[in-house]
């Protein structure tokens, strides 16, 4: 279980996986069930994601979007275990980069090992955190973390990230809008920013993501 306050507070996950936001509270009484990370790991991932997409004057970041919860769910699902990657031996780890990732480790293992190098990260001042990330920014682990942070920032909220559609509001993406037929050839040169709606809201029924598929 992860205390909500430790990842920015104020978000609540109900038993059926739905996400909502409570009025701000600073105590640690709201707990989020974790599927893969230990609480300590989740705190580090949350801190790293916040350096990749900081909460700053340009708008909310990974913390408000609940990126760590998104990543935790992805890692616990088929993607985290490489359920759809070709994993037959032999692994040619020395292959040139243009052959793509050739390691045997699935994302779960890459995260678990990568996080060991970042023990205590959440307690460092921001400048030291950035220096630490600069050291690893060309690693497979960092590439995954960066990619997953962007995913958790901008995915449909059904996947646990982009809480309250803060990511979509940040960039003016309206989510799955059923029709733009009346607008596509208007608004040329000016912003058209319909209020974001999630897939559940648009279709008025609940959806489950691939992370919830049986392994």
């Amino acid at each position, binding site marked *: 279980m992860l205390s909500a306050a430790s990842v920015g507070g104020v978000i609540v996950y109900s038993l059926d996986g739905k996400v909502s936001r409570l009025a701000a509270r600073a105590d640690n009484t709201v707990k989020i069930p974790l599927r893969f990370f230990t609480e300590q790991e989740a705190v580090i991932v949350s801190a790293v994601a916040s*350096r990749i*997409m*900081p909460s*700053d*004057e*340009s*708008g909310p*970041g990974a913390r408000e979007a609940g990126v760590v919860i998104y990543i935790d769910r992805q890692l616990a699902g088929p*993607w985290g275990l*490489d*359920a*759809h*990657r*070709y*994993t*037959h031996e*032999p692994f*040619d780890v020395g*292959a*040139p*980069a*243009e*052959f*793509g*990732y*050739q390691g045997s480790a699935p994302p779960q293992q890459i995260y678990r090992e990568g996080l060991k190098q970042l023990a205590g990260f959440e307690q460092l001042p921001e400048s030291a955190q950035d220096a630490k*990330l600069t050291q690893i*920014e060309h690693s497979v682990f960092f590439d995954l973390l*960066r990619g997953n942070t*962007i*995913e958790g920032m*901008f*995915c*449909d909220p*059904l*996947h646990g990230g982009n809480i309250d559609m803060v*990511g979509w509001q*940040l*960039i*003016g*993406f*309206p989510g*799955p*809008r*059923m*029709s*733009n*037929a009346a*607008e*596509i*050839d208007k608004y*040329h*040169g*000016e*912003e*058209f920013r319909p209020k974001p709606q999630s897939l559940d809201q*648009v279709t008025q029924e609940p*959806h489950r*993501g*691939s992370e919830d598929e049986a392994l």
Partner: protein
Amino acid sequence: MKSLPGTDIAIVGGGWTGLLLAKEIAQRTALNIVVLERGGPRRAGDYTNGMDELDFNVRFSLMQDYSKETVTLRHTPRDHAIPIRQLGNFLPGSGTGGAGEHWGALYPRHVPDLFEIYTKTVERYGEKKLPEDHAIVDWGITWAEIEPYYTKTDKLIGTSGKAGNLRGKITEGGNPFEGPRSEEYPTPPMKVSYFSSLFRDAVKSLGYHPYPNPSAILSTAYTNPDGIARPGCFYCGFCDRFGCMVGAKTQPTNTLLPILTTQKSVVLRNNCSVRKIVHEGNQARGVNYVDESGEECFQPADVVLLCSWTLNNTRLLLLSGIGEPYEPSTGKGVVGRNLTHQISASGVTLFMDKPLNRFMGAAASGICISDFDGDNFDHSNLPFIRGGLLRAMGTGFQPIVSFGTVPPSVKGRWGSEWKKAAVHWYDRVGGIGFSGEHIPYKMNYMGLDPTYRDHLGDPLLRLTIDWRDNEKEMFKFASAKGAEIARAMGAKKILMQAPYDHYDARRYQSTHIQGGTIMGRSSDASVVNTWGQHWQLHNLFIVGASTMPCQGAANPTPTVLALAYRTADALIDHYLKSPGLVA
């Protein structure tokens, strides 16, 4: 091995070509047809809730499951091949409809001289102009022979666009470089996005010839000759890598399957992986496959139609021991030769002043120019042959895959400065794409891998492929043209895509792979005749881009479907009446 009751026709693959052939045969004959599809079942109604970028556009839930099967890759015959372990350079489909479910539905015809590329190129520039190591050959058919079949496919799907050459007369608003069309498009062009309209105005000011991209996404409601009615597009932007929520984008499940389900003579079996075409003498006897429960089955058939996409068509011939595998060192053998992909790139990225509202759109709506396609421009003083299409598409951009494009002046790819720039530019970024020809070479080919196997234990297909100077020079030329247009569009800043280096399994080009079972006029240099009929096994027909001796800049599906119709005519009107090689 369970031996099943025989059928008249066995079709391997339930995608565009397999289902189109099944429909034609069922409508025009009384024959029994079994379609074997390795993936699961799908219906048009499956997509009404599918507007989720993460699962479809990032995790690729409609694509082939690489944990079961992939291909291996090497750059030259001297290297050992390495498996492509995750989806990247192309996105094969699986399941009913195949890649025809998740395609972008761009629907351009090839330039007319592509079918006679060898003859026409040598005529104009001489043999010396052809790149070293090339394997360029004529297709054995001409524009005049394929055009009626292109038109037939247009009627099937209701293609949206504007003719530029109607029976030889150049018409305003269309592509003046296209081959003569016998008929106007069934439906008018799609609406275009703001960014595409800027491209149209800019290329016009530069003296080029913009036209609306031919689209298999309908601009208006259309009912086809089979009575299939589909609505016009709503420009939601969830097309490429998705199934269409309303059926405006034509897919096998919304255009062919509704007919097939009414035909008692057609049986579609899902989750059946064909491992071998069984043959004896000069006859195919049927196919062996593994069914959903894991049981090995033999399906006897009088005629076998191999319709399982380029890579599987080639691999199944090799696994079945049909035809001589191509050997590049001697030039002998035919199965596997002429592997081509496509040069497909977001050549130039533009950073614009005003917001673009680029969430609105459709994958096939946009503006193109063909001024630099094929041999539409003089290559006498250029270090390459052929060319491609420059386009500004209004694809409907989604945030996970689009976020983070920043001007070159922004350092880093994470943190506050990067985030601020990425947020600012998010809706001000557009691309001028380039889709260019990839000519065939003797050393780009397919074979079986000696090391890696699929989930059933069969060898994977091995691709030997790399980019050559012709592709690199063509891309350089196209990028410079793109930059010229970008400046005319008023871009504040421009980002040029890195030049082509080695063939890269991480870099998505397109899902357009050609060759391996190529067509031709002679059995020495091709696998099938121009009807798709196997030269040696006369009751085996091969359909799909595997029969294309080279790739055009245009997306291949219109040509694939036209050739499928042509095979249907050869099979039904000639072969079934008089079995033997169709003349």
